[in-house]
């Protein structure tokens, strides 16, 4: 099975996020980037499928801040076979609609049997890359998938709905799936292996289609949340603290 995984580099939220001067977006020079967590699951699911049914896994992403190589090397160390990136004169942020078009152009050339994406990216929480890829490629799409197994010519996708309802879809290939969680937690890629990949791996490059412009919504303002109130820290030994808490709860009629 020829599997392609579309991935995205997103701002790390371990560090405090910095806004740019005019407050229209993040300050992309001041923040670190990480692989989107759901994409880690998409890569894992792809490698699991390959291990079970054979085939080849290609990982591809848009190199928005020119630091995508590290992420691609990591994917290769985890068991992907090929890596590719979309390069060009790219200014962050790039909307997911634009990224979907660029990715679709490149993926179409790869003739995949299965395209996996993370269910959504933690930066815009848009969740549209999967459906849009499917639309551009004219393929069926199933999202919020929590496990995939391969059958002859199709895959069985496990999906969870609200309220604990489970569904199993038999999806004819080729298709696009949005992965919420792989069947197993994403495996660890030892840095020794990643460094090996960094020395030896070749990354295929696709040029961006500069003519394509998505006329969609524009981000006008971004601001840090303002704290409306504050927490009161109650001092004292545990007994005193407990008594004060009880007094407050009683005063508010909560006990």
């Amino acid at each position, binding site marked *: 099975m020829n599997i392609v995984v579309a991935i995205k580099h997103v701002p790390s939220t*371990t*560090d*405090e996020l910095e806004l740019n001067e005019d407050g229209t977006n993040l300050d992309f020079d001041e923040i670190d980037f990480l692989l989107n967590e759901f994409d880690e699951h998409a890569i894992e699911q792809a490698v699991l499928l390959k291990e079970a049914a054979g085939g080849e896994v290609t990982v591809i992403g848009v190199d928005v801040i020119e630091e995508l190589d590290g992420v691609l090397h990591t994917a290769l160390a985890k068991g992907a076979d090929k890596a590719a990136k979309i390069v060009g004169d790219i200014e962050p942020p790039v909307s997911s609609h634009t990224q979907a078009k660029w990715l679709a152009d490149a993926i179409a050339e790869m003739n995949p049997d299965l395209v996996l994406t993370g269910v959504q990216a933690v930066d815009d929480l848009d969740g549209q890359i999967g459906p849009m890829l499917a639309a551009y490629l004219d393929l069926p799409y199933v999202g919020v998938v929590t496990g995939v197994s391969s059958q002859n010519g199709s895959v069985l996708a496990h999906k969870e709905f609200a309220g604990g309802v489970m569904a199993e879809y038999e999806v004819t290939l080729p298709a696009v799936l949005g992965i919420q969680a792989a069947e197993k937690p994403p495996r*660890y890629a030892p840095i*020794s292996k990643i460094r090996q990949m960094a020395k030896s791996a070749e990354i295929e490059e696709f040029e961006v289609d500069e003519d394509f412009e998505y006329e969609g919504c524009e981000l006008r303002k971004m601001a840090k949340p303002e704290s409306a109130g504050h927490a009161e820290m109650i001092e004292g030994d545990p007994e005193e603290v407990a008594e004060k808490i009880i007094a407050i709860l009683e005063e508010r009629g909560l006990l």
Partner: protein
Amino acid sequence: MDAGLDKVEGILEKEVAIVDGIDISGPWNRMFEQRVIWDYTPELIEKVASLPGAESFAWCYQCAKCVPVCPVDQVGDYGPRKLYRMAQTGVDLLNHDALWLCTTCRNCVRVCKKVVDMVKIMPAAREQAVLNGFVPEELQTAFENTAKYGNPLGQSQRKRAAWTKKSDVPVPIMKDVKRAEVLWYVGSYPSYHPRGIDASLAAARIFNALNVDFAILGREEKDDGDSQRLAGELGLFEMLAEHNIKVFEKYDWDLMVVTGPHEYNAFKKEYKERFGFDRPIQHYTQFLADRLDQLKPMLKHEIPLKVTFHDPCYLGRHHGEYDAPRALLQAIPGLELVEMGRCRENGYCCGGGGGGMWLDSFTINHTTMRLSERRVLEAVAYGADVLAVSCPFEVSRFEDAAKSTGNDQLKVLDILELLDMSMRGVGLAA
């Protein structure tokens, strides 16, 4: 002896035997049949010993000297001899939990006549296991954190110097000053862990009081990576070493002082042997002991407590430094230093080395108690009020152990904190 034993297979026993006129009838003449050594295959021993660095695993001749000194055996069933025997009798160590219990404390190597060196065997074998995808989850998290954020705690790299905001004395950053006599490598736990920060704040006050021209690296500093290497992540260690050495060489300094023994080992031995980084380095206890004439008159306030000192494996056994920490403690007026039975060369291990710091809930499933708990019980048995330490891994380990063993009265303090208390006369409400 149980006469019935003569029925056991492989044991020969003559009912009546007289040798040179001496009656050795019954159990006295018991003989074991020739051991069928070909029942054991050397393959699984070779599997470990064939890894570069792990050769000495095959040299073990089963004398068992290593077992009683192994800190893990004190709370479980361990030691190089036992690992060898397991491999001999069919256990694949590269795929067995026993692989993760050694803390690389070095006590077995100290006594082993065959120089079976667990400090080299363990990283080699674990690296193979990690490459094969066999790594305990907790440890994996520490690796991932270190790779992503430059510290095993998973804290923001950019906040590495945030602790200095709490300091009431200046803590210069190299990026601003460019040159300082002393480059103080703070380390991950002293930068982020609340109890580590306490020691860092104390160190900053002491350095200022001594008029030391020092600076730290702040957000340019990353974890030394040595414990990750010992836990099997050589690549991560190399990545961090390359980064740190580049940063060290960016600035002008004469001496590096490190807070932690693991960092001391990293820079003094591993960075030197593997990357040719060869600059003067001291552990803070050595640096301060060298300035004791200047420091001593500042230690004005008595600390009238019984204090025992836990030798950190990577300062003591690994680098032979036993005296500097003791000289500092003995310089504190009123303080009574009591030695525990297992001290100096035979010092017990806190359990944090070689990746043990990130294997706590894994290890506890294989031992009767934590190594840190065993150590705390020993400190209590010797009547100590304070367990003094000089390794940033230990404060939180021993404090947790004091609580979990019901010994809250035992205070765990870094030597830096004790010196600072004696200098300022605060925090002594013991």
